[in-house]
């Protein structure tokens, strides 16, 4: 359970740490969209280079990023597998009934794999280098324009920050309940699938109970302290757009231009 790195913050002082959360969120979301511009190996090399530079600049050890990919590995491989099977074209290496492994299939599968891993890496760069509270502040700021369309932006941000705030608690509590049930003789990760699923009940039930209790307490406390939805409020923490944040966005634009250029290069081959 402690191996889960999603939503954890890795304290540091790196260049990436000091970026404004808004810049980081915009850059990461933008990156996911630009990924779709990639269509040949040159563009993928460029994207990988960008990903690695971002990871290096965050000063977080690479093995931690690799650990972030591990839980999703099966999902990725499954998708890649489907892609390989259902893309036709080019040389055919293997054919058995409807199952065909072709050159294009393999290439496409590899590209899909790269895309997944890069998306995970880049979003992990953001979550590892940004405090959860800054992340929600950033999201809140970015969603502000939607307020005009009567979207309850503040409420959404509050919900997000409460959930993020309680992730560590929930993980700690999961660990505690798991320990307690293990002390009563439960063994996790052993026996048949059905047996393993049964061992989850003694974990999740106490967690649900305590989460519900906590939610109710939290609601009461907020009410007692005068929280009202829809009230205008100011923020204690202010976000400041700095020079380096503009640099970050410029890097993204340069990346796009590079991709567009390499993409067309590819067309001539």
């Amino acid at each position, binding site marked *: 359970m*402690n191996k889960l790195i999603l939503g*954890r913050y890795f304290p540091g002082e790196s260049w990436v740490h000091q970026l404004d959360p808004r810049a980081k969120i915009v850059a990461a979301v933008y990156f996911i969209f630009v990924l779709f511009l990639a269509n040949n190996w040159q563009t993928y090399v460029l994207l990988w280079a960008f990903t690695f530079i971002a990871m290096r600049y965050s000063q977080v050890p690479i093995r931690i990023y690799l650990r972030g990919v591990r839980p999703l590995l099966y999902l990725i491989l499954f998708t890649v597998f489907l892609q390989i099977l259902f893309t036709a074209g080019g040389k055919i290496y293997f054919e058995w009934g409807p199952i065909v492994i072709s050159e294009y299939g393999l290439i496409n599968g590899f590209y899909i794999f790269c895309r997944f891993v890069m998306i995970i890496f880049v979003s992990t760069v953001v979550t590892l280098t940004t405090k959860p509270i800054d992340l929600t502040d950033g999201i809140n700021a970015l969603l502000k324009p939607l307020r005009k369309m009567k979207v309850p932006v503040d409420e959404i941000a509050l919900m997000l920050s409460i959930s993020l705030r309680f992730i560590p608690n929930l993980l700690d509590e999961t660990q505690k309940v798991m*320990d307690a049930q293990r*002390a*009563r*003789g439960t063994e996790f990760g052993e026996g048949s699938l059905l047996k393993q699923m049964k061992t989850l009940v003694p974990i999740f039930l106490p967690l649900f109970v305590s989460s519900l209790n906590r939610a109710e307490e939290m609601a009461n406390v907020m009410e007692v302290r005068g929280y009202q939805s829809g009230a205008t409020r100011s923020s204690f923490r202010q976000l400041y757009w700095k020079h380096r944040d503009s640099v970050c966005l410029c890097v993204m634009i340069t990346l796009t231009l590079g991709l567009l250029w390499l993409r067309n290069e590819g067309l001539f081959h």
Partner: protein
Amino acid sequence: MVMEIKFDKVTADYQLGPIRSPRVLESVDLLLETGSFTAVIGHTGSGKSSLLKAMNGLLLPREGKITVGDSVIESEKSKKAFKKVRKQVGMVFQFPESQLFAETIEQDICFGPLNFGVPLKEAKEIALHALEQVGLDPGIRYKSPFSLSGGQKRRVAIAGILAMRPEVLVLDEPGAGLDPKGKSEIMSLITSWHNDNQLTTVLVTHDMEDVATYAEDVIVMNKGKIVVHDRVRNLFANQNVVEKWGLDVPEARRMQLMIERETGVTLPSVCLTTDELADALMEVGLV
């Protein structure tokens, strides 16, 4: 049955996501004899709970080894030993009521015994007995554990551990958050269980009265190390050690020190309870 617990230069830490915590146990050597009743005290964060978890194979030593009875816990590979150790060592966690999950109280208490291979019928009998032991009316056994009060839940959770028939009982602040009456009831329950079954018992507590009243031996922990392991009376007799580690003393002992200072009379023995203090005062003729 010999149920010694032995720590050999045990060092341990927690792996926490990307960050490894500092050592929570640092080259701990320890021998707990069969049938002993040991209290563990120390400031918050000194590693008391971690010490208990290590006895149950929940926190693995990074270096050194732990021997419980005839099983050895050394690393992840000691898997075979875990099951045996966990059957022999019953662990009551801090706020154990948060581990309740089953539909009925009976099912919850049976959970442990069933996991260790006790047949259902026998487990149910044990559950009934355990409920009586913790002072609850066996008639409530078909009720949901969530419908009980905090103190009752605590008792059910403890019954769930006692039902495993452990030979070693380790408890992490079993009285925390209970009213004084509930607390002393739970403490005397543990003591009588300890005496009736010749258990080896380890109790983490913040309350020096508990130490003085129930325990024979005491361990003082500081920053992951065991700094004192002695008879309770020896510890409280030695005011230097008590002050060095910033410990409280039982009410009666504090009273004794005050009387000795005011009157200049030294009482013949170290008094840990009010009864002892009264006897000593009568002996020297101060009352």
